[in-house]
């Protein structure tokens, strides 16, 4: 059966730039039917959106669960399970009108009760919720006004809240099934999404099949009705050579996370297309720990900023397939300051001069010494070598040798202890997927002494003020200005060294059409079909 399709997903065949969501190919007729096999790089931990702590789970979660609202690539928030909403003048509550035609895969009708249940469930310690807890802040409570109207109360006003509601980790679960399966809900997931869960064979495959009743897709996709695909089989293939080999040998139709060298070589393979979508949020960033000397002095940090040649690192390791980052935010996040691009040039002479000024003098072995102490930098990285992050550490070790800094690299999986509990690092790298600039708050706002300390340990009252205002500022234009000031201050004070923006990459057979990606870079399968 062939039906007309109004448009087809964005594809961008490997020119190294991100696909423009919304850019369309020539219109094609969608083919109904078929099983899309999709190789994942790691295994999801749980298919319970509220309990999952892994990004890879979201690829599957997005097929099973819907959210209250959707965020478009331009940052605007549009209806999904909610048809409209109003914000209280004080910003402390939202009232949502809900769709009346939605039901969960287990037959439970979708009502305000389900929304209240889902959000309250995240806060309930018995759920042992993972990343969703941080995402739902500052949620306080829900009041059911009637079956299809719900009022959500917040602890404090938040401009990021609506955007966060669009994320899969805050997806709405079926209350009936969540109660029935309890802590095994993650193995028996039930939502209202375009696909229903079939089975999960551990370390092998996860299968979902078309939800025939689906008719409430958000504006982000073209196909508002049921999916074209009969089913999707996610295979878990951790070894990258095997994953790409499976796509090339046609054992699977698509595989995620293509290593840079393969992105380059797959471009010449006529049967394969490569999609590349730059993820948004905080890029991979090296945080300089200001609680440690000499990094509490801006000159020392600027010396690192000038001595580390980020361009060389990114070009060497990712062969031009990952964009270099310039700001604490990635392009694509509201308020991203493009004027920071190309602002910092590597300058070893300047770096040497700065350290000289601080009284660190080069000894006979080329290492700087002050008061009998050698200038060492403890560089911590969480193993394994995800996205070649360990290699970044090694290159920086070589680059900083030129300015007389000894870099001691520690690769450890136990970052919870080394970094967060003991704070035993001078540099630690991290990244975060997000669509709202409020993500900066957790990293750069002077921490509550009782809370987990921030990575750079920045304590700047001015930056704090901007971040506080940015979290609640209702005027979009003013908000953008606030975040631009924050970004500029962070780079000027050399709080961090931003390294790269991570592109989510998918290698797919040419017959796979209409693969789309949401603003965070997660794949959407509503418009996907397999050309015969």
């Amino acid at each position, binding site marked *: 059966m062939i039906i007309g399709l109004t448009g087809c997903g964005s594809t961008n065949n490997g020119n190294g730039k991100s696909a423009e969501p919304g850019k369309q190919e020539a219109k094609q007729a969608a083919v109904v039917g078929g099983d899309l096999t999709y190789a994942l790089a790691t295994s999801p931990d749980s298919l319970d959106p509220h309990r999952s702590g892994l990004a890879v789970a979201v690829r599957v979660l997005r097929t099973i669960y819907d959210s209250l609202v959707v965020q478009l690539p331009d940052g605007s928030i549009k209806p999904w399970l909610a048809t409209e909403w109003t914000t209280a003048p004080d910003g402390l509550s939202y009232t949502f009108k809900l769709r009346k035609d939605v039901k969960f895969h287990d037959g439970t009708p979708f009502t305000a009760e389900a929304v209240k249940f889902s959000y309250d469930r995240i806060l309930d310690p018995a759920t042992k919720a993972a990343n969703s807890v941080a995402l739902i802040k500052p949620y306080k409570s829900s009041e059911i006004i009637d079956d299809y109207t719900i009022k959500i109360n917040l602890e404090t006003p938040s401009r990021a809240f609506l955007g966060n509601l669009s994320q899969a980790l805050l997806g709405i679960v079926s209350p009936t099934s969540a109660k029935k399966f309890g802590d095994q809900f993650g193995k028996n997931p039930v939502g209202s999404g375009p696909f229903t869960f079939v089975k999960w064979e551990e370390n092998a495959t996860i299968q979902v099949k078309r939800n025939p009743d689906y008719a409430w897709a958000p504006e982000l996709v073209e196909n508002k009705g049921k999916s074209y695909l009969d089913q999707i089989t996610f295979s878990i293939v951790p070894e990258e050579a095997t994953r790409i080999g499976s796509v090339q*040998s046609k054992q699977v139709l698509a595989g995620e996370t293509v290593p840079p060298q393969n992105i380059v070589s797959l471009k010449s393979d006529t049967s394969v297309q490569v999609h590349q979508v730059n993820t948004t949020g905080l890029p991979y960033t090296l945080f300089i720990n200001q609680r440690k000397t000499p990094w509490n002095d801006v000159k020392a940090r600027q010396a690192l900023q000038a001595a580390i040649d980020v361009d060389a690192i990114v070009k060497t390791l990712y062969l031009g397939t990952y964009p270099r980052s310039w700001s604490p935010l990635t392009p694509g996040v509201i308020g991203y300051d493009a004027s920071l691009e190309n602002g910092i040039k590597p300058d070893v002479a300047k770096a040497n001069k700065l350290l000289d000024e601080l009284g660190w003098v080069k000894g006979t072995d080329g290492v700087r010494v002050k008061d009998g102490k050698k200038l060492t930098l403890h560089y911590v990285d969480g193993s394994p070598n995800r996205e070649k992050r360990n290699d970044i550490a090694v290159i920086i070790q070589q680059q900083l040798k030129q300015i007389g800094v000894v870099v001691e690299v520690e690769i450890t999986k136990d970052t919870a202890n080394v970094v967060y509990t003991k704070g035993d690092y001078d540099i630690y790298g991290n990244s975060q997927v997000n669509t709202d600039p409020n993500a900066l708050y957790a990293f750069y706002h002077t921490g509550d002494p009782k809370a987990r300390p921030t990575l750079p340990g920045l304590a700047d009252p001015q930056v704090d003020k901007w971040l506080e205002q940015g979290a609640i500022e209702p005027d979009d234009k003013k908000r953008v200005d606030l975040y631009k000031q924050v970004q500029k201050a962070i780079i000027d004070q050399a709080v961090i060294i931003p390294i790269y923006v991570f592109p989510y990459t998918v290698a797919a057979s040419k017959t796979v059409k209409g693969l789309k990606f949401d603003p965070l870079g997660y794949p959407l399968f509503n418009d996907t079909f397999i050309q015969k």
Partner: protein
Amino acid sequence: MARIITERLIVSLLVILGSLVLVFCILYLLPGDPVLSMIDPSSMTPEAIANLRNQLGLNEPFYVQFGHYVFSMLHGDFGKSLLNSEPVLPKILKHLPATLALTLASTLISTVLGVGLGVLSAIHRNRLIDVVARIVGLFGISMPTFWSGILLILIFSVSLGWFPAMGSKGLITLVLPSLALGFVGAGFIVRMVRNSMLEVINEHFIVTLRAKGVSEKIVMYRHALRNALIPAITIIGIHIGDLLAGTVVIETVFSRQGIGRILADAIMSKDLPVVQGVVFFSAIIYVLVNLLVDISYVFIDPRVRRTQ
């Protein structure tokens, strides 16, 4: 003979118990907090984290934890995964067949290839077949399995399209991974069989047999090979133990299900009950294989029976 087997059984049980104690101690003393690896600490209150720790019994003293552990193990209760509350024993039993199939197939490949080439190369010493066998042996030993595995995928899946690159459904998915693993074992066995065959060939009884006019085939395959097999069986036994470790790598490369994958995942996420369960099972298998090897000596070599 019955006495030998009983003795061996008792020793085996002791080994299993010992491994139980050892695994528990290692994991108990390991740095890092399993609770913190289960959850994002910033998203939970300290009270909730303390509750969770209590629930898991992590606040009990060492001997209480160990007592609980041994008691429930003996009752077939291996606990629940810290990550998704899944019971450990069914999880292991579900994945064990895939690993056993892989182990069996690769042992078969390495035995046939190893013994065959070993014998041929000893008989035809310094001829072409000997050179080939020695090269195969050297390659088998020196190639890391993740590399040979990927090589096999590139040749036989991507280029030729003969075998699937991944999965654990059906016999066809077993071919490449068991070849990759079997090759390693073959490498060791070839060298062992060749050397012991060469030794045996020069022994007096072989010279005597030849002098009596017994045909060369009977001398080689009935008398020499039988004597050369004892060290080969030892190597095969040790290799089966190695295979359990080798499957961790190969199951990951070929995306197979199996207890190797489970173990690797569990170690990465500090899922202690799962690690303990898998290691316990591996110890049982290792001990069983060694038991079989020991018993097989008795059948192959009458001298073993007499010396006991």
